[in-house]
């Protein structure tokens, strides 16, 4: 394999990796702060893509204004907000009742929510997917990177995702807002004593994690078909990424997501039959050697 081919596969791996990174980052935030294993994350990613699709192709006729269309740029803002609201309602009225119990209850609840969302949407939309036609004109077409032709849109998706991921990391690890969040995780009683409304903070954090999933969904819509099962296909891999990175580790989620995308991309080129299993193989090895994950701290 020559250097051009390796560079090309690296770019492709990166464009998968950013989706892993965004999704596992949201999961890590939710797990780190709420101790909830959010199995609905894939379904919320799917919901983000559907809000974008519905906003563009369906909402106008539904409301009686056939000409109204929510374009891609608006979808990038609106879809995460809509899905975050859905997530916050879910946290406030469902998940909150389960905090006192074992993790497994939260997991089961969110898994159930995921199945309901998939079931409802697959009742109304083509299960093979629906094309999202609203890619802006400026992002269509391909650019010649020298070693390969690469779609402009994917380049945009990579750049935007990396910015969002590192901005999130900076906010949580380097700002006073992040400090409060992390303190709330360690000792909610003490933080409450400082006059901070911890339950509301938890709701907003859950909403933020969910918004990241929805944003990833909007970014995925022009690349993959918008289908009710698009999240279910991805979520297992993303959980493997979170486990490898270390449950709840912010930086771990980002770095592992990007790296495993690259590993998968190279496997697709070198030994395709292993492409879907390589991440799980790595997960097994990491769990055997470092059970807390690459970036996780073992509980002492």
């Amino acid at each position, binding site marked *: 394999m020559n250097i051009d*081919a390796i560079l*090309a*596969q690296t770019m*492709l*791996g990166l*464009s*998968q990796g950013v989706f892993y990174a965004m999704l596992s980052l949201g999961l890590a935030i939710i797990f780190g702060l709420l101790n909830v294993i959010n199995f609905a994350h894939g379904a919320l990613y799917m919901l983000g893509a559907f809000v974008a699709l519905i906003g563009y192709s369906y909402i106008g006729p539904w409301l009686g204004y056939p000409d109204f269309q929510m374009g891609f740029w608006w979808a990038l803002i609106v879809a995460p907000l809509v899905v975050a609201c859905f997530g916050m309602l879910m946290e406030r009225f469902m998940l909150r009742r389960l905090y006192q119990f074992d993790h497994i209850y939260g997991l089961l609840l969110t898994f159930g929510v995921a199945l309901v969302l998939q*079931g409802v949407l*697959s009742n109304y939309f*083509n*299960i*093979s*997917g*629906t*094309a999202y*036609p609203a890619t802006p004109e400026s992002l269509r*077409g*391909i650019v010649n990177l020298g070693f*390969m*032709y*690469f*779609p402009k*849109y*994917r380049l945009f998706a990579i750049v935007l995702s990396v910015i969002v991921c590192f901005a999130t990391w900076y906010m949580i690890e380097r700002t006073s807002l992040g400090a409060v969040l992390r303190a709330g995780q360690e000792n909610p009683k003490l933080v409450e004593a400082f006059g901070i409304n911890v339950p509301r903070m938890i709701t907003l954090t859950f909403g933020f994690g969910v918004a990241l999933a929805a944003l990833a969904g909007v970014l995925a819509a022009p*690349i*993959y*078909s918008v*289908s009710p*099962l698009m999240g279910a*296909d*991805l979520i297992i891999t993303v959980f493997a990424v979170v486990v490898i990175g270390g449950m709840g580790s912010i930086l771990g989620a980002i770095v592992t997501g990007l790296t495993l995308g690259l590993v998968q*991309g190279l496997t*697709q*080129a070198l030994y*395709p*039959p292993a*492409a*879907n*299993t390589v991440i799980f193989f790595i997960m097994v090895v990491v769990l055997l050697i470092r059970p807390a994950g690459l970036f996780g701290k073992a509980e002492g």
Partner: protein
Amino acid sequence: MKKTMIGAVCAATLTAVAATSALAAADGLSNGSVKIGVLSDMSGVYKAIEGPGAVIAAQMAIDDFGGQVLGEDIELVSADHQLKADVASSIARRWIDRDHVDMLVGMDNSAVGLAVQGLASAKKTIAINTGAGTVELTESQCSSYGIHYVYDTYALPVGTATAMVQNGGKKWFFITADYAFGHSLQDNTARVVKELGGEVVGSVNAPLSTNDFSSYLLQASSSGADVIGLANAGGDTVNSIKQANEFGIVARGQKMAGMLVFLTDVKALGLDTAKGLQFTTAFYWDRNDESREWSQRFFDKHGAMPTMVQAGVYSATMHYLEAIKAAGTDDADAVRAELGQMELNDFFVKNGKIEANGLMSHDMYLAKVKTPDQSKSDWDLLDIVSTIPAEKAYIPVAESSCSLVKQ
């Protein structure tokens, strides 16, 4: 006194049972009715291809037949096999043993199809497969009660590959779904390509349900092939075509050939992406007045135009009921013999014949996806380019490896 009572009750029961069975025997129907079971994927990836639409199609056939055959009601049951062969087998067993289902139809997915056909044959029940692709159903695993109705992995490549090679697509690269179906599809396509003087320059086995095909497409693109053959199905096909378009592969001159494309896949891709794509199909709703008339009725009930599989379910159910009427019984052997005698012709099938190995050989069509300008309505998606006659489309029965075919 007590003994006499019990005796009387027994005698009465026996008389009643005898009377009922005599009655049933008189009109030729076991259990006093004909029961048809639609066994399909109702919730997974093939839902739109067969699924609830197949139940509607079967019900339409029953209604159009008049709801009764040989003076008794026709009943319909349906279930979700969840794409799992074990689930499908246990439903089929329950239907046949307990609920006395006389005929099973549907069974998309090859593993499900083979499992159910094997089970149904052992229990002397007719199983008409409308959804699965594997030729094994009528080759080494053929059975005297199994019928393969709509398409198989032999018929699909014939039209598509022939058309592509004749238009200059000599060098082929395959992106193949890494399981039995994909490999069989690739082998059959490669055979056609080589027979016509083309060559296969490479192939890559992609795991089933791959999200991102760009890496494989890149390998295909740099192989120098004229045609990228997609030996996969459903979401895999949709994603490969979509991403090939995204990477400008088609714009730079390579052609894509989908080996198994359903109407729902074209819908999923959108005409802008799919335009010009050629593939082989058993049915297209807009082919003639007959197919339009039926499809419109189906559309009114289902909200989507029928796929070839859903149209096939109607046609299969209708012919099965006609065979019962002609045979005067629902006895599986008699009905199967009757079906073997019939020439099948309706809005779905032309020149259809059910061979000894269970293969329903019939004309197939080469279709081409319209451009957005050519399309006049939501479902105006395809042009039928040519007809592939039955004898070219399917394995000739004389060459079948099925043990039921007399050599």
